[in-house]
């Protein structure tokens, strides 16, 4: 059986690959907040030898920076970012969990001042073996990553 690309190639832009199946929409949501004019093509539940199934996002004419990629690391820690210029991959990197997330997730504490004032949330990230915890800069409460189902 001839190999066939599951998603059409792009001339210039960013391809986010190896997103765990089911996480793609959350990343789309975040990308649209970063730039609401962004042109996206999304593939859900694509077959992947590596992961079984994966989601994949292509962003036309928009080059993601490493710090933007790192903000998404909690949603898809093993995803890879491919920067495309002239149909070629010119740069490829993995998301890395950042030390701090600013304005990415709401603090889960509904009584935290960051949820009622016009300010960005600020969460520091602590990785202890396989466990990821986030501490709010304002209310000082510590949360496990599972309490952050959605980006803003």
């Amino acid at each position, binding site marked *: 059986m001839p190999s066939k690309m599951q998603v059409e190639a792009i001339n210039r832009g960013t391809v986010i690959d190896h997103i765990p199946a089911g996480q793609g929409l959350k990343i789309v949501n975040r990308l649209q907040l970063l730039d609401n004019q962004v042109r996206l093509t999304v593939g859900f539940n694509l077959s992947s030898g590596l992961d079984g199934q994966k989601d994949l996002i292509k962003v036309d004419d928009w080059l993601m920076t490493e710090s933007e990629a790192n903000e998404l690391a909690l949603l898809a820690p093993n995803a890879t970012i491919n920067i495309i210029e002239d149909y070629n991959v010119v740069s490829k990197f993995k998301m890395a969990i950042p030390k701090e997330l600013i304005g990415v997730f709401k603090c889960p504490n509904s009584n935290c001042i960051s949820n009622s004032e016009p300010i960005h949330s600020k969460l520091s990230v602590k990785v202890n073996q396989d466990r990821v915890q986030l501490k709010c800069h304002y209310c*000082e409460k510590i949360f496990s990553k599972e309490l952050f189902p959605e980006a803003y």
Partner: protein
Amino acid sequence: MNNPLYRKHILSISDLSRSDLELIIQTAAIIKHSEQSRFLENKVVASCFFEASTRTRLSFETAIHRQGGSVIGFADSGSTSLAKKGETLSDSIKMLSGYADAIIMRHPQEGAARLASEVSNKPVINGGDGSNQHPTQTLLDLFTIHECQQRLDNLTITFVGDLKYGRTVHSLVQALSHFHCHFNFVAPDALYLPEYLLEELEEKNVSFKRVEAFEAVIPETDIIYMTRVQKERFDPTEYMHIASQYVLNVSMLQQAKDSMRILHPLPRVDEIELSVDETPYAYYFEQAKNGVYARQALLALVLNETVEET
């Protein structure tokens, strides 16, 4: 006296180093034994209580008046136009920082003081932000422990009652972690210390143990820190059963060290029997009085580059 606290925001006990804590305690002792201290002359301090807290507010305001400073502010934001006009907290604080030399604030939401510190060009002192921090309560507790034990290192401190919801206990445990103390924790399952704090103690290699029989650890204890078990957290029968196990009475003190002292952040309900007040171990009313000295010391250090003994 070298003063690293000059113009510093005081938001969380975890922002203060061991030497900062020692400086505050030392200054509070000097102030307590001075005829008078006038470290706040010509200073205006804003006392902004976005929620009512009579004890904390009066203690702060006494500390300002006793040192010759002036107070502006409010006792409850409901009586001001700030909330009614829909102004953000950030804007209110920016405005106040143009009037006063320092801002003391209490607020019902966690993180309010830290946010205020980010927009204020004057020092902000946290008088309690929701369930988060109340650093000056911890400072007065440390000052009191030092005063009655003459040291903070190598003490055995037994915490009793509500160790889960009481921020007083959490902050004091964190602050005492600098001082090589041993902690005994006496509490029902439902009111035991939160997981994050236990993890923090383990990370710092702090010596602690959970104790079932309160009376059994009294002979080894230097400080008993009693707290109130709040009725509203239990159904009435459960409350009666639980509360009765965490009551301190005179007969339990027979084996106590002569130097042992009992502290309580107050208000007390019935967890310390009134007869204990008459024993030399009771120190909770002196502790409450020390709130003024600890706050005097903090304000003096935050508002003066040097604080010299008078």
